């Protein structure tokens, strides 16, 4: 990638997040360019979700620079960060429980792109079109009138994704999209996320299910104790000693290697 020429979509430099004396995010650096799908993995407590909280403004960084399209967002409120084109999902299956799936997505579409001036009473047609599009991309169109409280876990995850997609984000942050799903459902989500990437969305995702992470990401970052211990492609990841030691373990590394070889063979 000719990164020297372009301004990265997201640039993080020397980002620290302290909880008391604990550095949950420790001198983190990351550049994300338009079209990237960056997958972040790492053991529990490595600071992955905290990192998403930091860049999305939910839990601002203690220090460091975070720039979205060259503009500093390290001290910007989360609703304004959303307006600037960054949307995220949450690890817990967050939703607006009393509202229908369509209304959930409508919130992203109606408020996610900006909400200035006199508060409007009605929704424009463009807002509804974005809702339709997001529901379609996340395969929720036929569940639109169901109340969010009543939908099963897969739909809840997709719902969160759809309401983020409806904000028309340049950068989409996805926190554990397939945690708690069965293998079949994992494949469904994988197709959907790849579909979003094909739509031109730049994505940062966190996932423990390595099969998913490896197949979706164009670049992989592994975190440990708040630090980045690996950044690079899939092949390098499985042969990286430190990653295998602290996170994957020999068995998993072998199994994933095997899976990738099989897939490569299947692709011809």
């Amino acid at each position: 990638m000719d990164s020297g020429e372009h301004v990265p979509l997201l640039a993080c430099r020397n980002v620290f997040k302290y909880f008391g004396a604990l550095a949950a995010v420790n001198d983190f650096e990351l550049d994300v360019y338009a079209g990237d799908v960056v997958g972040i993995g790492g053991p529990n407590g490595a600071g992955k979700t905290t990192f998403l909280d930091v860049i999305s403004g939910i839990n601002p960084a203690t220090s460091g620079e975070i720039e979205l399209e060259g503009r500093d967002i390290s001290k910007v409120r989360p609703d304004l960060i959303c307006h600037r084109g960054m949307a995220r999902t949450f690890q817990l299956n967050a939703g607006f429980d009393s509202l229908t799936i369509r209304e959930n997505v409508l919130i992203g579409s109606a408020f996610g792109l900006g909400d200035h001036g006199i508060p409007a009473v009605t929704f424009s047609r463009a807002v509804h079109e974005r809702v339709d599009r997001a529901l379609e991309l996340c395969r929720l169109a036929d569940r639109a009138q169901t109340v969010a409280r009543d939908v099963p876990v897969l739909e809840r995850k997709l719902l969160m994704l759809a309401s983020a997609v409806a904000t028309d984000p340049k950068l989409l942050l996805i926190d554990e999209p397939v945690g708690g799903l069965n293998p079949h459902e994992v494949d469904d989500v994988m197709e959907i996320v790849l579909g979003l990437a094909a739509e031109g969305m730049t994505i940062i995702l966190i996932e423990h299910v390595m099969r998913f992470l490896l197949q979706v990401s164009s670049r992989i970052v592994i975190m440990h104790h708040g630090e980045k211990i690996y950044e690079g492609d899939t092949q390098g990841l499985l042969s990286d000693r430190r990653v295998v030691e602290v996170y994957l373990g020999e068995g998993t590394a072998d199994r994933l290697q095997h899976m990738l070889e099989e897939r490569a063979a299947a692709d011809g």
Partner: protein
Amino acid sequence: MKTRDYVFFVILLALAAAFPFMGVPRYIIASTLLLFCYATVVSQWNLVFGIAGIFSLAQLAIFAFGAYSTALMGRYLDWSLWPTFPIAGAAGVIFSIFIGLACLRMRGIYVALLTLAISQTMFVLIQTDSDCSELNKAINPSTCVAFTGGPQGLGDFGTFGWREVLGGRNWMMGDYYSMLGLLIVALVFTAAMTQSRIGLAFKALRDNEELATSRGVSVFKYQLIVFAASAFLTAMAGAFYAAHFGSVGTNLVSFPLLLFLISMLVVGGIGRNWGPLLGAGLLMVADEFFKEFSDLRNIGLGLVVLLFMIFLPEGVAGAIESVCKRLQRLALVQHIERRLTAALRRDSAAPD
């Protein structure tokens, strides 16, 4: 809102409009118009508490603020009360925005504590206001009346003025329809607000504040909007209350009234379209019985709130809704059963 709700609304409206002509005693008319007044306040409270999910108890303070605004303007400026109503409403909005700003960094029970403290401060400020006001000396030098009237309350500021128009026998009708008009405006306003884009933002913040902000909804903006929007008609209700009784007192910010209005909200169903109206109606009727036991009234109300919180947290409106849903489901199941048995019978009857 479904068609059913609109039909209901129109029927109730017709009933309320025809009510004074049904030969009911005068004191029932008086109680009913008070019911309209309280239902107006509770409907606006429902917007803050039920729809936006902010645990504010400031509604009573805003109600009293409106009542006192009108009383003070009527008394010291010697105005007819009608022009003071919108001014009282606007004053209530400004007052409420300040409360909203003060509560901005708080959540849940802390908002309740702060807003309760504001009501109590208002109560104490008025209750302890005992200096003879120069303004009152100008009106009648021989008496000593505090600016706010203090614990004695304030009177002599005028009324709706229907007595002059409709005569001594029918003025109550004027008050009744004025209050009904206000309630209708309040119900239409809250319904429209709940359905609107702004209402969606309120509900988003209520259901999940963190997710809502991550989807671009500003807490600051919508918290102030809900405090402002719910205040105008609340303060107007206070002003109408003052105009009906021709006097105001500290009972308007007192704990028993707060408890009474909370009970309406809880019994009716928090966040439900029909909650405020149902709650106000039921509580007004129940209060007729409680009145006999004056001292036990508050304990009784507290008990009612407690029992509803435990057994019917969604209030009467919520209970009716879930019964309707269950009946619908039952009807559907029976329908399917009938179809199935009919099909089976056809199959077995068919020659092979």
